[in-house]
């Protein structure tokens, strides 16, 4: 496995658009060639070498190329843009649009990630050890084509509208999430192990969401179906029990919403619909 390490030469102030930091762009290149790859520092076109110390030798193909980024790159955006394979390890916090339009390979972030992780993602895997921002896997405004395939795992908390317009793939948040997870969702799976700020699955047409923690209320247009013992996530079965809701009926949606019974005693009144 070839390895290339990037280390910021300075603390970045203006946004850095670094679409070229991908195994696909690094494979088969010398360090000098990598250093010449173009990035944007605000409104200036600069080379990677001007902003980063670069060391190591990449693999022959993206598959066997690993990029390690040390230091604080919270201002560096679009790392992993359209990558098809290989790995990126980011040791500190990272900026927006991490892994945008990603098709394969794996990105691991040890710090926090900003918003729009995995925008327009088509495959591959992103794992954020820290917290993440809003709109995980969501498309840009006005576009209805969200995340298609792939997996995003966030160990910390995430913000609002994760999985917006989702069309497939899986998002797992071990911590809490903000409001509107799975809004406009068509397909795919969202698992929230922590609490959710509410309005879960608004306008959803399909797909399934599970919330293991507390949720303040269920949107008016989700009907209570039944109590389920577990929630199927790929091969794994997550133990319930869960209240299962279907919605969003305002959109004639058939999305499935699993809400942990144990953490949501205040939703008990729904059980009267069981008789």
């Amino acid at each position, binding site marked *: 496995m070839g390895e290339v390490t990037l280390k910021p030469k300075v603390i970045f102030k203006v946004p850095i658009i670094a679409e070229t930091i991908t195994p696909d762009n690094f494979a088969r290149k010398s360090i000098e060639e990598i250093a010449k790859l173009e990035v944007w520092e605000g409104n200036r076109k600069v080379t990677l070498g001007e902003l980063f110390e670069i060391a190591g030798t990449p693999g022959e193909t993206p598959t066997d190329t690993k990029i390690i980024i040390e230091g604080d790159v919270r201002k560096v955006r679009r790392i992993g843009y359209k990558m098809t394979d290989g790995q990126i390890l980011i040791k500190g916090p990272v900026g927006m649009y991490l892994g945008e339009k990603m098709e394969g390979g794996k990105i691991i972030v040890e710090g926090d990630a900003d918003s729009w992780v995995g925008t327009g993602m088509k495959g591959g895997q992103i794992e954020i050890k820290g917290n993440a921002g809003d709109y995980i896997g969501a*498309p*840009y*405004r*006005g*576009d*209805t084509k969200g995340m298609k395939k792939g997996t995003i795992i966030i160990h910390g908390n995430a913000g609002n509208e994760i999985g917006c317009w989702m069309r497939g793939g899986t998002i797992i948040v071990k911590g809490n999430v903000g409001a509107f997870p799975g809004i406009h969702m068509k397909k795919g799976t969202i698992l929230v192990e922590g609490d959710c700020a509410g309005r879960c699955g608004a306008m959803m047409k399909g797909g399934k969401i599970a919330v293991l923690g507390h949720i303040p209320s269920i949107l008016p247009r989700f009907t209570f179906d039944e109590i389920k013992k577990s929630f199927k996530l790929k091969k794994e079965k997550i133990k319930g029990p869960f209240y299962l809701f279907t919605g969003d009926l305002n959109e004639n949606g058939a999305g499935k919403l699993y809400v942990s019974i144990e953490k949501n005693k205040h939703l008990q009144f729904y059980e009267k619909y069981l008789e």
Partner: protein
Amino acid sequence: MELLIKNGYVYDPINKIDGEKMDIAVKDGKIVESVSSSAKVIDATNMLVMPGGVDIHSHIAGSKVNSGRILRPEDHYKDVKPRTAITRAEVGHTVPSTYTIGYRYARLGYTTVIEAASPPLKTRHTHEELNDIPLIDKSCYLVLDNNWIVLDYLSQGEINKCAAFIAWILKALKGYAIKIVNPGGVELWGWGKNVESLDDQVPPFDITPREIIRGLCKVNKILNLPHTIHVHTNNLGKPGNYRTTIETMDAVGDLANGRPNIHITHVQFCGYAGYSWITLRSGAPEIAKYVNNHPHVTIDLGQIVFGEATTMTGDGPFQYILHNLTGNKWKNADVEAEGSAGIVPYKYRRKNMVNAIQWSIGLELALLIKDPWRLFLTTDHPNAGPFTEYPRVIAWLMSTKAREKTMEKINKRAKKRGVLASIDREYTFYEIAIITRAATAKALNLENKGHLGVGADADISIYNINPMEIDPSKEYKKVRRALKRAAYTIKGGEIIVKDGEIVKSFIGETFWVKPTMSKDLEREVLKEVSEKFKEYYTVSLENYVIGESELASSKPITVKTNF
């Protein structure tokens, strides 16, 4: 500045020039007999030379177009081009920015474009956008058929006062012609309703769509306006609507005197036979038959091109129907006392039977209507597709092979719903020059446009194909590629495009009509209009009027009326 275009094969139908090898001399923005030896020379040997394109119907400026831009950021993300030293940044696919529209038309070799529908109350916005569209000369039609003051006058039979009001409004708001959009239907859309036929009542006005169309046709004659009434028919986009279209044409047949007196726009959208979407069939043969036998009618195509589009019309009720059909996001914006506007993003798919039939209807109309002088090429940009696809439509018209290739890829059932497969007519370069330059300039009565005779504006397009050697039927791809990026576009004697790239940018002229009218007739009508304004409108009459200084480059055309 002197220019000499040497040895090109010139197609100038207004002057009956059909592919003659000749020189074109240009001096101070005009075509001249000859120029001095110091003139800059363009060697157009083995190249196709035509007058600059004239687009008679395109949604390029104003509140409707801008609503489309704001509604569809997704239309802009993937279609961007950074700024250069000469050009502003370009953005947008079906609803491009103002600068992008000017540059793209120039690259196609088009030099005059008309905004197809501007509600009077928002025409100041239309002009502010037209001011920001570089290079092309331009104007706008005012939507007047659902205007309360017009409807008041017409329903009271006051044709002369209606004519005086329309003369005033064209002058006050700097418009060019009378635009009619689903007459009566859009007024009822103010209550969420619509009309079904030409003879429905339009309460509270005691009037029908037929009477609105006839009234405005008479007004057009009284005012002697350069262009005829420009009509978007009732029942647009509805299966079986070809009958309404023929009835609409026929409604003013008796008022004509040899010259055309009605233009039906984007006829593809109103050329549907059958009675439901499943039974949809082409109504083109019937419409073509009528047009061939009635010289008082001109039409433009509204040809479908497969792919992304943004439907935007003043026909509010139709856009709501389209929203319910597709579920796509819908924007509606009614205008007090004047009309409406609706926008719905749409994608034409080859495998969709309805889209495939719509595609063939447009081409059937073009191929079945014999007189190219009464038929204009449009895609009702961006309703049936962006104007940048004109070369693709031209390839379909010039080559049966191009049509067959597309027919192989479209929904199979569509073939039996029309007659396209049986038509083998192929347009010549001469005919293409007619339907994209000459006929449109004539229909607009722009005497200095659409031709290369001495005295005309020096708007010229030169394409890198040899019309004498190429066989458009077989090498339609080459034709398409050559027409997409002009080798040279010259506007007002200045070279603005070279090999498909913008080499110079400036602002063209906005032309508008100034119908002559006696002072006291104007004063009398204005007295009544200002009373109505207080009740109908939320702006004062004074602030409704647009000053000539608000136009970046104003070119008024005085029109001698027949009051």
